[in-house]
Structures are given as C-alpha cells and as structure tokens.
C-alpha cells in the first residue's frame, strides 16, 4: 500500500461517509427543504472526495481534468435541480418546517 493508495483510500472512505450522511439525512429530515440540504452535502462533498481520491491516482493531466469536469457538471446539475424543486415546492404551498413537533 503506497502513499498514493493510502491517500486515495482515505479520501474514498471519507467520501463514502458523506454519502452515508446524505442518505441518512434524506430519510430522517422532516421536510423537503432540509432533505435538499442533506442531498447537497452528498454531491459536493461525497462526490468531491471520491473524485479527489481518483485524482491522486490519475495518470495524466487529461484524465485528471476530465474527472474534475465530471464533478463540476454534477455540482451544477444538482444545484439547478435543487433550486427548481425548492421553488416548485414553495409555490405548491409546502411550508418549510418551523421546528415544532418531532
């Protein structure tokens, strides 16, 4: 296990931790808006760490650049979709959770 392997393994496990946190948040949070927050953590942190782990092992600059582009596209994609869902939910009259009750 060389240093590169250790670094990428550590980054991957951290990323997997954020994926777990995002899914747990998705299941446990009370309303749509808080769940959107949980999902935002999943993609920019979970996916970001996985991509970082892959960057450490990437052969050339071209492969590394492509990995970063995939991550950026995923970021923009989920930011756009989160915005659309939240705006639509607000217009539909889904009240944000105010902290009372379980």
């Amino acid at each position: 296990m060389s240093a590169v392997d250790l670094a990428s393994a550590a980054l991957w496990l951290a990323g997997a931790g954020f994926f777990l946190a995002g899914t747990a948040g998705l299941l446990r949070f009370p309303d749509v808006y808080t769940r959107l927050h949980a999902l935002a953590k999943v993609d920019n942190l979970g996916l970001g760490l996985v991509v970082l782990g892959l960057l450490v092992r990437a052969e050339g600059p071209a492969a590394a650049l492509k990995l970063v582009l995939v991550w950026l596209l995923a970021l923009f994609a989920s930011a756009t979709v989160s915005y659309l869902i939240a705006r639509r939910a607000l217009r539909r009259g889904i009240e944000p959770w105010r902290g009372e009750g379980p």
Partner: protein
Amino acid sequence: MAELAGWLAAFLLANLLVALVRVARGPTQADRMLAALLFGTTGVALLLLLAEAQAEPALIDAALVFALLAAIAGAAFAQRAWREEGGDERR
C-alpha cells in the same frame, strides 16, 4: 486497491437502495423528485469508482454523460411532473 473501489461501489449501491425508501414513503411529490437528484450524484460516483476498480477509463465518459442526463431529467421532472396535481400556474 481495486477491490476497495469495488466494495465502495457496492456500498454506494446499497446507499441508493436505502434511499428508495424515501421515494416510496415520501409524502409530497417533491420527495420523490429528490430521488432523481440522489440517483444522479450516486450514479456518477458509482461509475467513477467502477472505472477505477476495473481500470476501464471509458466509464469516466459514461459518468460524464450520466451527470448530464441526471441534470436534464431532474430539471424536466421538477418542471413538468407537477402538472397533473391541478397545476394552478398557467404559463
């Protein structure tokens, strides 16, 4: 090293299946739409890890296309899917 990537890919898949519970149970339509988001991100991470596990660089391009499709599907879902619930806004 490659089998760690494989195991992580399996973990992400299990993550995805657990998230389907929210899709089934989600009270509002918006909760079901969250799945489109989660599938996009987790799918991309899954493909990237598989590209590493099987030393198959073509899967990175598949992840790129998948991220793009997740964006379009999510946006279309958010814009169109709520029409039948008595869409009040006439645009």
